[in-house]
């Protein structure tokens, strides 16, 4: 028991690379997560424009609304770096405010997504409706799941801050959570560009004689 506490106080556990083990592992994870999302995004792109029945992207995607939720997510990334810098300064009030702000903005983003999925379902687009529905919901759904996990993580840190467990000696805890959060943000940057800005105007096959 004493040993474990000892280790916990030892913030930087390094290996021959000079990088903390946890941080190194986390970057390896993010690197593999690129492959995960890469596969889902590619699948969407391969099946793009191949649905035989509607609704098609142009019929239901709400780009202005999604632009707003994109802004919210970008803002949350800013709040996250502020939380990290508050942790470095041992500014407990700042830590709590910025962690909560990040989590709340994440929840707003998820709220937009739930609304979007709901709207789509009402317009007849389900995951089984057509290729667009299958690939769209799989990709954005997994992204939403990532965001949701990040929200839980942030609230956990928020609660820990009341037990005095978030401070400059444990800055890595916040930093790694931040890495995850920003990663989810950059994945959204790609999804927003490809699915909404580029592919959002895709229509169905031209019905000609």
């Amino acid at each position, binding site marked *: 028991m004493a040993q474990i506490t000892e280790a916990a106080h030892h913030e930087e556990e390094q290996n021959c*690379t*000079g*990088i903390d083990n946890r*941080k*190194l592992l986390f*970057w*390896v994870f*993010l*690197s*593999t997560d*690129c*492959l995960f*999302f*890469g*596969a889902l995004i*590619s*699948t969407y*792109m*391969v*099946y793009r*424009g*191949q649905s*035989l*029945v509607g609704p098609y992207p*142009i019929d239901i995607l709400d*780009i*202005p609304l999604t*632009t707003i939720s*994109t*802004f919210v997510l*970008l*803002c949350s*990334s*800013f709040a996250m*770096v*502020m939380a*990290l*810098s508050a942790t*470095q300064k041992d500014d407990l009030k700042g830590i709590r405010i910025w962690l909560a702000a990040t989590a709340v903005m994440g929840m707003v983003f998820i709220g937009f997504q739930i609304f979007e999925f709901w709207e789509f379902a009402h317009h007849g687009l389900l995951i089984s409706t057509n290729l667009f529905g299958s690939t769209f919901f799989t990709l954005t759904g997994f992204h939403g799941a990532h965001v949701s996990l990040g929200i839980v993580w942030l609230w956990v840190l928020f609660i820990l801050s009341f037990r005095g467990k978030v401070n*400059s000696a444990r*800055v890595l805890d916040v930093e790694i959570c*931040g890495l995850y959060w*920003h*990663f989810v943000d*950059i994945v959204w*940057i*790609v999804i*927003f*560009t490809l699915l909404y*800005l*580029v*592919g*959002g*105007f*895709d229509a169905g*096959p*031209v*019905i*000609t*004689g």
Partner: protein
Amino acid sequence: MSSGHGNEHSKHPSTKKYVIIAIILFVITAIEFLIILPESMQGSALAFGPLVLLSIAKFYIVIMFYMHLKFDNPLLTKIFYGGLALGTVVGIALIGLYAGLTGTPREYAEARAVPYEGYYAEKTNDSSAYAQSLIPTPAPMTESSNAADASTGSGDAAAGEAVFSGTLGCVGCHTMEDLPGAVGVLGPNLSQIGTVAGTRSALSAEEYIKESIDAPTAYVVEGYAPVMPELRSSMSDEEYEDLVAYLVSKK
């Protein structure tokens, strides 16, 4: 950006820089939105380049400053770029495989699709029929055999209804008024096909219906896309005869 000296924490950008970065990210997103605002740019190839470049810029700024790869051990950047590159290459390869070789993905698939011969045999557990289907036989529905079959009319219309509403998926694209569930709208309404078929071309009603199934693109009804799949090879000869008899009876 930073002097690069001092302890790890001072290497991170200051609050002021974080604010500036946030503003830059905002501005880029706003520009992206403005690019696709004019209707002429929506879905246009012209918008693609700028949009991709702008999002790469955003991506880069976030990983370099928010995720401070710029200030961290270069090994982390290499690890991340490794995964990113692999993911991107796999994606490009996949898209290339479908789209890059010939025409659009759809044309590529249509030109190469091979009917799944084993399906019917598996379903009926008739292994000899399956074995036979593997032996290349003259196509059952050439022009001449088509004409010969036309006189037989041996199908059972009641059984044909089951074929029509079965796993082949006709009902997903065609409406048949007296058949619940047959409400598809991608193809023409077939409620009176027995009459309509005779007026489509020089062929008789039965011949025309057979042609519609054997070679869906031989005659494409005006106002519809040539998307009806070739399903003749997915049904047995008996099912085919029944289906034709059923459709002919729809007057």
